[in-house]
């Protein structure tokens, strides 16, 4: 999408303005970025009304195109505002001759070319298949072919250790998160006792609960009684036990 801007100094496509500013052909300090961003924002806000909703996705992509460019402008200006470091510190960075730049560029181009060649070699080689490697271990052969011993790197050590771990026989214990805690059950029981005045002891437990939960519930009940928040009563001998809230008792 072509995005034109209108500034005091400049009128035309945004990318050109960014390029000019970068090359110092336009003084960025004379361009009011606020106005540029403001008008962009307005355009963005106005956009959904002007266009059909069906194409909303495509519009978003187009709409956001000027965003990095405007960002570049802001960055340029911000950088210009920064105080410049003292001259001697920049000694090594400044004098890059044109020849040096050209040389570096050429050098990089060459590596890019050979990288593409390598890609072709890689693809070609992967059209050839071999027996699954590792079935036969070639002991000592690598050392023999290399000539002199090579230093072992951290990655080699790591993969060697991975093999050690693979062979480890001691089983690993799994620590499980406790699904039930006495604290939580205590709260639960208090709630129950607030709502109902009393509960049948047996009703506190259901057969479907697992043993751990049953034990935790029981411990919570004991804790409740220890704190004298509840007591257990029995209406007659061998009768049902009821848990009664202490206040009511």
């Amino acid at each position, binding site marked *: 999408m072509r995005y034109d801007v209108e500034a005091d100094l400049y009128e035309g496509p945004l990318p050109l303005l960014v390029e000019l500013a970068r090359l110092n052909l336009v003084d960025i300090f004379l361009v009011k970025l606020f106005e540029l961003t403001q008008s962009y924002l307005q355009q963005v806000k106005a956009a959904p009304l002007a266009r059909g909703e069906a194409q909303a996705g495509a519009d978003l992509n187009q709409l956001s195109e000027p965003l990095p460019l405007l960002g570049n402008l802001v960055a340029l200006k911000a950088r210009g505002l920064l105080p410049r470091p003292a001259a001697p510190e920049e000694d090594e960075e400044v004098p890059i001759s044109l020849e040096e730049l050209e040389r570096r560029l050429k050098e990089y181009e060459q590596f890019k070319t*050979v990288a593409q060649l390598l890609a072709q070699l*890689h693809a070609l080689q992967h059209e*050839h298949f071999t*027996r699954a490697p590792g079935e036969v271990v070639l002991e000592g052969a690598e050392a023999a072919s290399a000539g002199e011993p090579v230093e072992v790197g951290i990655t080699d050590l790591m993969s060697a250790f991975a093999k050690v771990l693979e062979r480890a026989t001691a089983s690993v214990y799994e620590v499980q998160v406790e699904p039930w805690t006495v604290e939580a059950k205590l709260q639960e029981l208090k709630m129950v006792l607030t709502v109902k005045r009393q509960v049948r002891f047996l009703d506190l437990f259901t057969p479907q609960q697992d043993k751990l939960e049953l034990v935790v519930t029981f411990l919570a009940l004991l804790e409740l009684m220890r704190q004298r928040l509840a007591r257990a009563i029995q209406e007659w001998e061998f009768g049902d036990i009821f848990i009664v809230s202490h206040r009511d008792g």
Partner: protein
Amino acid sequence: MDDQQAKRIIEALLFVFGQPLPLKRITEVVPDLEPVKVRALVQTLNGEYEAGGRAFRIQEIAGGYQIVTDQQLAPWVKRALQSPKPDAVSAAALETLAIIAYRQPVTKAEVEAVRGVDVTASLDTLVERRFVRIAGRKDSPGRPFLYGTTAEFLRHFGLKSLEALPPMALPSIQEPVAAPAESAGPQEPASPAEPGASQAASVGFHEQ
């Protein structure tokens, strides 16, 4: 031992091994075989495979020999192995790899100087895939790691050795910066006949 028998032994050895079998190993197993003889016999075998329209051939790779399938059969083999695409190497990783391959041993900073970007991620990938390994430390401040390529790299790129890398156009890039511009001229194109030699010679000069 007659040639026929020696040829059969070589074929048997290569048939069994799932990784490149070094020439040296073959001559260890069959002491009365000269390396030259082994090379010749491998060539004979390859000739026979081709003439007979066999599905495989012997490849010289990573300093050894290996039996590989013909590339024309790749689609079927792939289907049988149910292997997805050979995990391709990204363009960025390939650039990093190329610089390391031609400049090794080389530090991360030196690679970054050429590519002009941070290469941490691509370097990690390369080390993880075992194309590149730490080959030592440089004797300079901070003792940075030096990186070099591995046999795995040769294997995956179908190279006999580092000398078999495709030639770089200009060896003059190794020239120190301060050198006068004219000196770069005469030594320009590497002679394509012996690309490996010029590369091998320049490796190592790079370190100051």
